[in-house]
């Protein structure tokens, strides 16, 4: 690690001032689970770290008016243990879905520290949070010197470790829609070992009508691609089909044909990552059918 100064602002304004002061040399630190790896390897060497842990406003969760606001510094542990969403009556079961996804990220020790906002800002293709937040159609509130703006998920995630955040800005809230109607969700990933990040992942959201036909849906692929990517062709194919009778094999074949993998190394190449997609979408579909 290169030397750095460690700042501990107590409020959002103070934190914004601290990051805006010398933005190119400053990195916010939430849980540090990704940032510290980059500091130790000297992949990054900011001269100042601004801790967000003491900023209460960034760790709040609230619900109502069809949406749930999740503070960026809410930890995976608080969500996995049911604390974070305890006071929120979600009408779409979206909190249950996010809880299932998050309880299965990395391991307990990482989940104690890791935050939802940290993972979103880190924007690694292999991470589960960008894919899950895209499938739930989350909005991202970005605070800067000139005020706050709202960015949609497909605009927030720009590429490998690239987001819509400008230097000196902070992610101040993640706004998860809590839609009326019968929504169902599923997520599946495949990594090398249980606590490894995904080589490929698939998330699925469907709304069904009174006869259990798919009215509206989103299918999002991660891992193999530079940023969470919608599979619009498969989505169109799903519309109108009774959810219980969707042929998972056919959906899998279509998804593998539609997605163009962009990432792959010598050991786990693009074609390997593509070959995982049919099984993953089948598992995501099964979860959506079973769990609602």
């Amino acid at each position: 690690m290169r030397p750095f100064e460690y700042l501990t602002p107590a409020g959002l304004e103070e934190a914004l001032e601290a990051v805006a002061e010398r933005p190119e040399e400053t990195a916010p630190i939430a849980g540090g689970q990704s940032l510290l790896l980059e500091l130790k390897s000297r992949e990054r060497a900011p001269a100042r770290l601004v801790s967000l842990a003491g900023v209460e406003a960034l760790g709040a969760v609230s619900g109502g008016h069809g949406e749930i606001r999740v503070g960026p510094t809410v930890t995976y542990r608080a969500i996995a243990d049911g604390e974070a969403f305890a006071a929120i009556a979600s009408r779409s079961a979206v909190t249950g879905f996010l809880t299932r996804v998050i309880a299965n990220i990395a391991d307990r020790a990482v989940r104690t520290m890791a935050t939802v906002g940290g993972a979103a800002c880190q924007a690694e293709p292999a991470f589960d949070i960008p894919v899950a937040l895209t499938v739930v159609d989350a909005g991202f509130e970005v605070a800067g010197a000139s005020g706050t703006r709202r960015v949609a998920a497909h605009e927030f995630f720009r590429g490998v470790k690239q987001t819509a955040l400008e230097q000196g800005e902070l992610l101040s809230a993640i706004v998860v829609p809590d839609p009326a109607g019968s929504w169902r969700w599923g997520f599946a990933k495949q990594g090398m070992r249980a606590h490894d990040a995904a080589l490929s992942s698939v998330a699925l959201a469907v709304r069904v009508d009174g006869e259990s036909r798919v009215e509206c849906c989103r299918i999002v692929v991660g891992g193999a691609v530079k940023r969470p990517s919608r599979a619009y062709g498969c989505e169109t194919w799903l519309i109108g089909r009774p959810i219980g009778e969707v042929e998972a094999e056919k959906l899998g074949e279509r998804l593998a044909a539609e997605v163009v993998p962009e990432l792959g190394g010598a050991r786990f190449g693009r074609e390997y990552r593509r070959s995982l997609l049919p099984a993953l979408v089948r598992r995501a579909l099964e979860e959506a059918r079973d769990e609602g």
Partner: protein
Amino acid sequence: MKVEITINGRPVAGEVDERTLLLEFVRDVAGLTGARNGCLEARCGCCSVLLDGQVVKSCNVLAAQADGREVETVEGLATGDTTTIEDPTTEGSVGTYVPLSARGVDEGSLHPLQQAFHERGALQCGYCTAGMLLTLKEFLARVPDPTEAEVREALRGNLCRCTGYQSIVDAALLAAERMRG
């Protein structure tokens, strides 16, 4: 910067470089060498300690992040006097089981997990053991009556290169049973 962390109930203060990891603070400032560096990449779990009762990988947390908080390490598990065993690999004892009591350790003071690890042979080189114990302590407080599969899941982030895990899982289940009373 000045960092003060309560470790196993004892406040430990130090003037440290900002870059100091919690693992380094625990080992070098507090002098407690039970937590180990096995990878420094948050992968192996050898450095696991409890931070305000929750398990963390101390190699991936800054001491500054733990400032003013409470840490528990493996040294905090046993109550009473646990005399350090001098030179545990002396030739004469190779292949011979010597009960801890014969080595001057009061077995009654061990944490049930430590006792179960000892009885089930859940360690060989012992490098991973401190991390295993603290991960399991936090887990059993949350899930007192786990299945074998749940124990294995809880140890997802703790690697052991020696035992093949079965004896660790067995020890965890034995300790859980005893802790339920």
